[in-house]
């Protein structure tokens, strides 16, 4: 623990209240959109949210560049980022949990494998349903489909993400050596790979919808597939945007060999997204 002689305390904070209003508008707008309303309120909320983030982070960046943050503040930032990532892990945990549950309990139960009422469930309600993963349920919701093969697209995507992890690490070493230019170059590569990943994911979705008839409503398989890959893809987008911002900051001569927390936070996040993908690749595509 650091031992400061006095503390850093920011004073007024105007952006949080803007952020709350923005989120309120976004959520309320999204909900009414789902109920068949317009999208204007939601878009307003989203725009305000983005604006708020730009301004708030702008303030933070300015303060950081002015050297207002002590080592103690730095530690607070690190801890927060760490635990924020942990909370994200738990968020994905819910969906992985759903996948495991559906595969180890619901599916077998519906097809009559297991204790208790499983046999009766299959005999009385779903006779003829045999459990194989993947499946879209005894009523075959969404109709006949083909499963998403792990080759070639997902393998390619795995390679892309793994490579991006490497480029990100090279960039990290670069800034630790104080070589800002090298950092920017490798960050650019990382972002490019990130966006390429998202693009390929889009191609995969297009394939799924256009040719495989694999959709969100393709029973439990489609549900878990799109929920997991979708939220992951969203996180890749966010991560890439964050890295992009870090890159721009690097171009503006931010960061030094010893002081580059924003970079590190973005890199942690990127590695987290990477690891989640490995989980996805194994449990969604291969097994």
């Amino acid at each position: 623990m650091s031992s400061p002689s006095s503390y850093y305390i920011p004073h007024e904070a105007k952006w949080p209240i803007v952020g709350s209003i923005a989120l309120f508008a976004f959520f309320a707008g999204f909900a009414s959109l789902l109920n068949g309303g317009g999208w204007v309120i939601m878009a307003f909320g989203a725009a305000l949210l983005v604006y708020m983030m730009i301004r708030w982070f702008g303030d933070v960046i300015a303060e950081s560049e002015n050297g207002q943050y002590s080592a103690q503040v730095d530690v607070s930032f690190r801890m927060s980022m760490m635990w924020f990532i942990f909370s994200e892990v738990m968020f994905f945990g819910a969906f992985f949990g759903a996948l495991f549950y559906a595969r180890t309990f619901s599916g077998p139960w519906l097809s009559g494998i297991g204790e208790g009422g499983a046999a009766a469930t299959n005999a009385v309600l779903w006779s003829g349903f045999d459990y194989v993963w993947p499946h879209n349920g005894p009523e075959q919701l969404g109709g006949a489909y083909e499963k998403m093969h792990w080759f070639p697209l997902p393998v390619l995507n795995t390679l892309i993400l793994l490579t991006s992890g490497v480029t990100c690490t090279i960039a990290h070493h670069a800034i630790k050596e104080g070589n800002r230019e090298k950092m920017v170059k490798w960050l650019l590569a990382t972002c490019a790979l990130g966006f390429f990943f998202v693009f390929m994911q889009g191609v995969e979705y297009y394939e799924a919808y256009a040719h495989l008839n694999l959709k969100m409503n393709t029973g439990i398989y489609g549900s878990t597939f799109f929920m997991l890959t979708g939220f992951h893809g969203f996180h890749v987008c966010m991560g890439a945007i964050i890295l992009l911002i870090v890159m721009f900051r690097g171009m503006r001569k931010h960061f030094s060999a010893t002081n580059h927390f924003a970079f590190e936070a973005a890199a942690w996040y990127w590695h987290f997204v990477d690891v989640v993908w490995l989980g996805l690749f194994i449990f969604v595509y291969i097994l």
Partner: protein
Amino acid sequence: MSTAAAGHHEHDDHGPAKGWTRWLYTTNHKDIGTLYLLFALVMFFIGGGMALIIRAELFQPGLQLVDPLFFNSMTTMHALVMIFGVVMPAFVGLANWMIPMMIGGPDMALPRMNNWSFWIMPFAFLLLLSTLFMEGGGPAGGWTLYAPLSLQGPDSFAFVIFSIHFMGISSVMGSINIVATIFNMRAPGMSLMQMPLFVWTWLITAYLLIAVIPVLAGAVTMLLTDRFFGTSFFNAAGGGDPVMYQHIFWFFGHPEVYILILPAFGIISSIIPTFARKPLFGYASMVYATASIAFLSFIVWAHHMFTVGMPLAGEMFFMFATMMISVPTGVKVFNWVATMWRGSMTFETPMLFAIGFLVMFTIGGLSGLMLAITPADIQYHDTYFVVAHFHYVLVPGAIYSIMAATYYWLPKWTGNMYDEKWGKIHFWVSTVFLNVLFFPMHFVGLAGMPRRIPDYNLQFADWNAIATIGAFGFGFSQLIFVYVIFKCIKGGAKATDEVWDGAEGLEWTVPSPAPYHTFEKPPAQYS
């Protein structure tokens, strides 16, 4: 290390900003703590008002006042408001006020994010409460939002889901802040095992929150996509399972109930030693017990689901694991009693509430233990016996601890003593009515009255009438609480710095009322 905040002193460092925008923009942990506490107080009356509607309808058999759908919606909202809008924010408010002072820190680790954590709450609840005024009414599927019933909900469904996401954002940010504060802002030299128990219990609570709130977010997101995007997580026809929702929900839900009680344990562990004038018995085992409870809370969730048709092995496991929680909880209870033993006790209002907590929480805990016994729970489940159990741990548990904390620290917050006479009246009136309110629920529950029903057989009529009398008595006696608080804010006998003669801890070393910025320089004790 770099010197902080050099050249950034153009603001007034020694007092709050002027005008109402102070509250909007504040980054001061005390201001934010106050906001949280006031918010919780207001929500307590809203959630309590809903409870009174429930009780009024249940006063007699037959439907007199409300449509059954509205009744269900009151039950649902009452629980959501009480849990997410009262107990959690009140605990966060206390954490804000007390943790920096208790650990000798200047403020929370991330003061601006702290402001946001609070200012999300009013908006999130605006979103939630507004659903009551929408066509079709608010959510009416119970606070647990079980699929597929909740999926049938009216248009307000999406608003409810998003309001839960919204509150979740606040909780996660708040907890991260607390974790960072505790680890990073302690006075130099203060080791973890020197921290007051309130700080310890909150640290563990914050971890529980960070771990399970995102799981709740995931669960309700799946509800949302099942309803609007055609997924079939909770639909057997597509290979999903309604019970899966319950597993995910209770993986959040059970730790959640400990989130509602662990900070209370911390508060009681502060108050009892003060008024027994004796150090807390078994500090270290208190810490380990809290950690054990938190750990166990992750592996007992399915005790809420003994009737869903789990395999026998599952029922056994969850029964045994649940029973185990009694052991660390028992250690806590015994330690408190041992702290009182051979002390030199006085019974000011905070102590009365703490003793009320101790007695009635134990009653609620013991009925919880009965619920853990699977074969018996199959009879108890979804009856008023369960309602009695959780109100005993929540109302004289969580709520009493918050009241005890308020009386205990109010002099430190305001600089004035509260009115002891009215405080004691508040305690006694509340306690009598509270038992009139909740004790009979054990009886009707055992005799077979299901929960979440607006109307019932005549066999349950008498006890329900009594409970309703208790509810109104208890509800209106809370006006005394409000009166005492506001009287104390406005004036009263000046409080000394130490306030209570047996009190220990850093918060009692600063003046009363605590100055706007407490420890701008780290305190010296621990270095």
